[in-house]
């Protein structure tokens, strides 16, 4: 791979990378100034032209989402920034917030101007204490420097940014769950439509965007739409729904890898490149059994599928739900897929908000069946039962409110299809891999 100069991560690792002073020395807030000199609609068009798609998991085109706001709305319009980042194996937002909070804040300021919002809320998961302190300090610096507040740079533009902490629940990352939680209620996702752009936070038009998306917006203002679009992968002609995957992307690699970490590369690198060139290979000299392309909701890619590009379109070709958060988890050949799948099922059973019956019952049921299998009491027909339960809980038939249910079902369907032999062997051998730690955790 040709050497690639990081932009989103360019300042990570520099001394004092969190401070406004060093950020400004690196050209910080010039993009915001530039945006303020532009009409909001021109900023939206610039982001549209760049081809930027949201980095929070769904990959919706950012500029297009912004245009869904009602025209000539009297306000307020809100920007809600999704810093909940609770999809297992995902930590790219954390790196940005902890190490370069001003890059994120500048993206937020630019986006607020573009969507004519004077108030942004950053919904930050509670566990990210370091991010909290870095962002809090950076926000204070911005107010003191007149970058936030009233009549910024004499342009008449006002902006308030509020940092709001969550309380350790995955469902707060779902955009309408986030809105409910921010409003002081249980994080129960709302039925859509109405979409947040029409009726969101405090029943006002709201845009929900991810942290990395904000960093991309900042870079697009600095470097232009062409620069962003020069990287990545154009739309797949065989997939009419693919809008292309442009720009740099933060890939998180974790699991059985020698050098876990967050790496910035153009959209469209392959798992093999990530594992071999960035991650230093599989640990203990072992081989890859499976790779999760982007958070456990997405399902698994096998060792034979490592050369598929990790763009928005790629993992789908391997029967995955999508790219998700591009958090690549490497699973070595000595690991039982039964154990891995159990771990995924347990997560979703714990995190379902309980509002929809197929999700609440389905996640609990799949967790129970996988527990049974791992106790050495599984039967072959349990595999079909798992697939059947998983198939009945999607958002496609419209029986559930949000995407968690789909995300819980997908890895089950996908793993049993791809690794059925291994599941059968496990059941037939009467193997039992339950760890004693799990008995402890069963009290919850």
């Amino acid at each position, binding site marked *: 791979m040709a050497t690639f100069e990081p932009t989103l991560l360019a300042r990570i690792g520099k001394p004092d990378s969190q401070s406004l002073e060093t950020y400004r020395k690196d050209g910080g807030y010039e993009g915001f100034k530039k945006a303020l000199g532009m009409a909001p609609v021109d900023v939206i068009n610039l982001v549209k032209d760049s081809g930027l798609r949201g980095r929070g998991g769904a990959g919706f085109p950012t500029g297009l989402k912004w245009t869904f706001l009602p025209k000539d709305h009297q306000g307020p319009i809100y920007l809600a920034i999704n810093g909940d980042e609770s999809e297992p194996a995902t930590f790219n937002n954390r790196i940005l917030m902890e190490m370069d909070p001003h890059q994120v804040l500048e993206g937020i300021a630019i986006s607020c101007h573009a969507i004519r919002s004077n108030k942004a809320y950053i919904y930050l998961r*509670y566990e990210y204490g370091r991010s909290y302190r870095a962002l809090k300090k950076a926000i204070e610096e911005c107010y003191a420097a007149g970058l936030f507040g009233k009549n910024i740079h004499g342009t008449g533009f006002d902006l308030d940014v*509020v940092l709001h902490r969550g309380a350790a629940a995955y469902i707060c990352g779902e955009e309408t769950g986030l809105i409910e939680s921010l409003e*002081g209620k249980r994080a129960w996702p709302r039925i859509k439509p109405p979409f947040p752009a029409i009726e969101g936070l405090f029943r006002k038009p709201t845009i929900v965007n991810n942290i990395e998306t904000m960093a991309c917006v900042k870079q697009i203002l600095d470097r232009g739409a062409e620069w962003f679009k020069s990287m990545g992968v154009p739309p797949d002609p065989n997939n009419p729904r693919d809008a292309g995957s442009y720009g740099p992307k933060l890939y998180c690699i974790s699991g*059985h890898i020698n050098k*876990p970490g967050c790496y910035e590369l153009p959209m469209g690198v392959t798992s093999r490149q990530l594992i071999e060139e960035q991650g230093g290979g599989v640990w203990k000299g072992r081989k890859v059994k499976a790779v999760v392309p982007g958070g456990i909701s997405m399902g698994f890619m096998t060792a034979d599928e490592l050369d598929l590009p990790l763009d928005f379109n790629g993992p789908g070709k391997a029967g995955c739900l999508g790219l998700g958060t591009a958090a690549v988890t490497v699973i070595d050949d000595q690991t039982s897929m039964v154990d891995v799948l159990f771990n995924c099922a347990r997560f979703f059973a714990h995190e379902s908000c309980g509002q929809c019956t197929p999700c609440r019952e389905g996640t609990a049921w799949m967790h129970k069946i996988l527990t049974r299998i791992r106790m050495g009491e599984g039967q072959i027909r349990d595999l079909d039962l798992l697939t059947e339960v998983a198939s009945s809980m999607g958002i496609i038939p419209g029986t559930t409110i949000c995407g968690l249910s789909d995300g819980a079902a997908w890895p089950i369907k996908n793993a049993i299809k791809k690794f059925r032999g291994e599941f059968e062997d496990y059941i037939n051998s009467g193997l039992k891999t339950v760890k004693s730690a799990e008995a402890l955790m069963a009290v919850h």
Partner: protein
Amino acid sequence: MGVLSEELRNQIRALFPNYPNKRAVVLPALHLVQDAERHVSIEAVREIAELLELRPAEVHDTMTFYQFFKDEKHKLGKHRVWVCRSISCMLRGGEELLQHMCEKLHVHPGETSADGKVTMEFAECLGACDGAPCILVDDEAHMNITPEKADELLKSL
């Protein structure tokens, strides 16, 4: 004078201007109370509700949705230690680490050590997978934790 100190009340009131209504202050208020008292009692729920002009049931409903907030029966110790059990940590020994730490403190997850110092919990992904297995002490992540490092950490609390 109720269970919430005047100082806590003022801290909660200071958040009002951040939001168009007081209900949005429920989570920040619960955080402030739990940080100070190590739990949120029913009396505190009533007083938060009064401050925010809500029904106690509305505050209680929100609070109980988030297992993060603890009632009188589950008062937190001085520190809260979370061990991540999610996929990346699990692949690198997170569950064994949880077992080790629970044994060390003679507790089950969710319980507090006899000296009241540490409440042991498991976490779904902590978002520190680059340092798996990782643990969170209050809200500070500690990465690449071995049983030995865990023992040292516990001792330092």
